[in-house]
């Protein structure tokens, strides 16, 4: 039995989300961009961004209601590390114009050279960080 069906089907749903937003609204489903633009003052496009985020947050609750249990979440990092990581993710995704969704899902699908460079970079630094934390420093 292929063990990765939930990953594959879940990924396809994420791709469907990206396709839906592009075909219907002409927008890229990039989470960091959708949220980052909302942190500035109210603009005409704040409403659809908010609607997307409400849907995003309802998704896991709907999933939990359908399957009867909450999706597992195991967080090993300490609070100071989580704060540092959050700051880096927030600032970095805005400076780099995207994250795993905008550059990863949408950008790679559009064959954008910028997105290929971004994905290669963040995959490399993420893997290097995990290597350093787990195999050099002996962390979680």
């Amino acid at each position, binding site marked *: 039995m292929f063990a990765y069906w939930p990953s594959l089907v879940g990924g*396809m749903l994420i791709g469907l989300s990206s396709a839906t937003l592009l075909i219907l609204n*002409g927008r890229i489903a990039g989470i960091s961009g959708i949220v980052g633009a909302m942190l500035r003052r109210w603009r005409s496009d704040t409403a659809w961004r908010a609607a997307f985020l409400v849907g995003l947050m309802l*998704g896991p609750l709907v999933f939990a209601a359908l399957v009867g249990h909450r999706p597992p979440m195991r967080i090993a990092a300490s609070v100071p590390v989580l704060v540092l990581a959050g700051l880096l*993710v*927030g600032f970095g995704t805005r400076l780099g114009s995207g994250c795993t969704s905008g550059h990863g899902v949408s950008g790679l699908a559009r064959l954008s050279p910028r997105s290929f460079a971004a994905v290669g970079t963040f995959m490399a630094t993420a893997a290097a960080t995990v290597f350093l934390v787990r195999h050099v420093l002996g962390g979680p």
Partner: protein
Amino acid sequence: MKIVAAFASGLLFGLGLAMSGMLDPARVLGFLDFAGAWDPSLAFVLGGAVVVSMAGTRVAGRMRRPALAESFDIPANRRIDVKLIGGSAMFGIGWGLAGFCPGPALAAVPLGIPTALIFVAAMLAGMWCFGIMNSGARTN
């Protein structure tokens, strides 16, 4: 209608994240840990997402305008610059430290796990800092 479409897109995204297992930082870090017990599931998530997203991009490419909006709003920038690489590198370090990227972190908010909320607060602060610095740089 644009608001409803954005909500539906967000809901699909959140469902997909929950089904795929990507809300769980331990699994994400397992994928990024190439030197340890590597968990390939995230590759199936990204693969499934990109294939479906690519089909959407093909459909959108044949449309003169999106179904519900006046025009497509797609990044036209093709320059691979220091901001793109530096920002992506920062993002990757944060992602590797916590196992959270923006989509899963925000989708997990209603699940109410305190450490996840701390990460989200720090991430929003990081995005906000970028907004402040960026608006200061643009004086027009």
